[in-house]
């Protein structure tokens, strides 16, 4: 690959990440504003709200931490609760691990900071990120951009807190964005099953404290879809084809014929 081609490829991945990120950032903006407003209007303070965006980068855990801090909770209680609320990141990290496997050490230690619901969903929706350098550029652009937008919008929310009216528009944007990300996964039978079971369990287990209901919902959805997938003969064949196609795609992407790998993976994805 010539220097010009390499430069064009780099710009392509950055542009793709920016294109994927723009609607996500737009959808998350009201949620980030809400965190800034909540911090500024509570005893936790505007500074804590912005700092939580820098350090935690996860809306539900931030809201939980700010609420607990405002109520004067002990350090141990706040840390434990935040860890439980963010336990789903453990699952996201496990799913994203293949993309991090052949990366430099600095990236494997620092870049997981951007593991959060939208970035995970963005990567899960792409089939062209098998090449490590390509994934690295995509991840740093999407994750870094998301973090910057999130922090900026939290700060804006804190500044505007005295003049912003109380509106449900701030709370409805985040679930609407998750809904938009969910819909493409509903084309596959296993995806529909995982989603329905998770939604039902989330409602049934809503009384559990500290995000445990959400965690139980995710686990129930994943387990049910996995078991159902294992029981269906055609899906077994499909999953075998998937792993074959994926490994073909990976090895092809490692060599120069990236487009072949992408089309193989895309064909397989639509088949499944």
């Amino acid at each position, binding site marked *: 690959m010539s220097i010009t081609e390499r430069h064009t490829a780099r710009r392509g991945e950055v542009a793709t990440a920016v294109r994927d990120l723009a*609607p996500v950032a737009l959808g998350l903006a009201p949620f980030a504003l809400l965190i800034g407003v909540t911090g500024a209007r509570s005893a936790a303070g505007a500074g804590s709200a912005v700092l939580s965006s820098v350090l935690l980068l996860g809306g539900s855990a931030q809201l939980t931490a700010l609420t607990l801090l405002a109520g004067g909770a002990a350090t141990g209680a706040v840390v434990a609760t935040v860890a439980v609320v963010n336990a789903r*990141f453990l699952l996201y990290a496990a799913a994203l691990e293949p993309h991090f496997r052949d990366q430099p050490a600095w990236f494997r230690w620092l870049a997981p900071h951007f593991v959060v619901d939208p970035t995970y969903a963005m990567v899960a929706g792409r089939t062209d990120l098998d090449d490590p350098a390509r994934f690295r550029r995509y991840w740093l652009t999407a994750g870094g951009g998301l973090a910057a937008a999130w922090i900026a919008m939290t700060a804006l929310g804190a500044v505007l807190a005295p003049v912003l009216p109380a509106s449900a528009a701030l709370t409805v944007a985040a679930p609407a964005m998750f809904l938009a990300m969910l*819909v493409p996964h509903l084309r596959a039978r296993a995806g529909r099953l995982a989603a329905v079971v998770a939604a039902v369990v989330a409602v049934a287990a809503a009384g559990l404290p500290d995000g445990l209901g959400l965690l139980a919902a995710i686990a*129930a*959805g994943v387990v049910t879809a996995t078991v159902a997938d294992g029981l269906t003969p055609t899906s077994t064949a499909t999953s075998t084809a998937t792993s074959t196609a994926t490994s073909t795609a990976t090895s092809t992407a490692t060599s120069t014929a990236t487009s072949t790998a992408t089309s193989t993976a895309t064909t397989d994805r639509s088949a499944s």
Partner: protein
Amino acid sequence: MTLLLAAVATHGLRTVLITLVPAHRLPALLRRGLPHLAPAALAGLVATALVTTSAPSGPAVPGITYAALAVAALVAWRSRHPALPVLAAVAVTVVAEVLS
């Protein structure tokens, strides 16, 4: 200091299956479940938001939020565009609040 400790715990959750115990060493059964994670997590997040909204101490009027999310679901299904459902949900909420 509390937020810093919470951040360390969160970063641990994010890195442990990437850097310390890579997920490809997990049992095959667990790895088979990972592709189903995205729909389960996203549906769980939406359902949790709906339940939180309908709680007595919830932040919004449930009827408005349900209507906004129903419109968002319809727009998402028809358009497959990630921004349009959000704009539709916010627009429905703002209009409903102005009218009520």
